[in-house]
């Protein structure tokens, strides 16, 4: 095992994907510390193997494929510990349900009504948008964030996600709904709300 070669110019490039990789690992492992461990091992392996990376695929895609092996390793080691967390998932879903209710007044109207976003597709081309998007993802509650990541980023089937998380379809869906409303609000404030797009 080599030391982390901080001086390698490719290190910075790989490092840019760390936040995404951590989120990916948390979605699978449901444990921040284990996720950090998996990503650390992934990044070390990537630095050692970067000569073999030919760039036909995006760097992120290549890193993710390495990470998947590291995650599978860790999952084999920790499989027995998973059941104990399931009680917490129900509480998380209840809290999400309450949060959703609070986004509407007693007559069921939006408290902060969704405004039209002008040309949202253009945001996808801007580096700064992705930083905001990552930040908004990071603000979601842990369980809802994991479920959203698997459903919308990785495109997994809702039934599979509920199974892996050990929660009912109803709870799974509540978490997704909360995530969508919260992300919408976060992007409204930090990106589409105006004045932010060109500045900072």
């Amino acid at each position, binding site marked *: 095992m080599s030391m982390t070669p901080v001086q390698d110019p490719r290190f910075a490039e790989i490092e840019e994907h760390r936040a995404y990789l951590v989120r990916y690992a948390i979605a699978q492992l449901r444990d921040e510390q284990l996720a950090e461990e998996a990503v650390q091992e992934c990044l070390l392996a990537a630095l050692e193997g970067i000569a073999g990376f030919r760039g036909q695929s*995006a760097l992120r895609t290549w890193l*993710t494929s390495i990470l998947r092996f590291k995650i599978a390793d860790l999952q084999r080691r920790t499989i027995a510990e998973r059941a104990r967390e399931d009680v917490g998932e129900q509480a998380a879903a209840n809290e999400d349900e309450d949060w959703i*209710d609070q986004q509407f007044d007693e007559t*069921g109207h939006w408290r902060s009504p969704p405004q039209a976003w002008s040309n949202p*597709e253009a945001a996808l081309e801007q580096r700064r948008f992705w930083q905001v*998007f990552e930040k908004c993802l990071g603000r979601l509650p842990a369980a809802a964030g994991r479920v959203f990541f698997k459903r919308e980023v990785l495109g997994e089937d*809702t039934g599979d996600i509920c199974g892996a998380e050990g929660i009912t379809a109803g709870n799974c869906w509540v978490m997704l*709904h909360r995530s*969508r409303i919260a992300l919408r609000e976060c992007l409204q404030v930090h990106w589409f709300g105006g004045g932010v797009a060109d500045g900072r």
Partner: protein
Amino acid sequence: MDADHAGHKLNCRQASRLLSLACERPLDESERQALRRHLDACLMCRNFESQLEFLRTAARRLADAP
């Protein structure tokens, strides 16, 4: 808590639930009709509808960002 939407007017809370649910499974006929009636009259929920689409596009793009 939500009243059965068949034949009733939806409020925004109920409509937004259906819009989110539609990302998970096809809505049935009565859900679709109730939602359509609400959306015809509610710009805010139409905005929410297109923002859900945008969130999905952005999230999918995140997995293979350059």
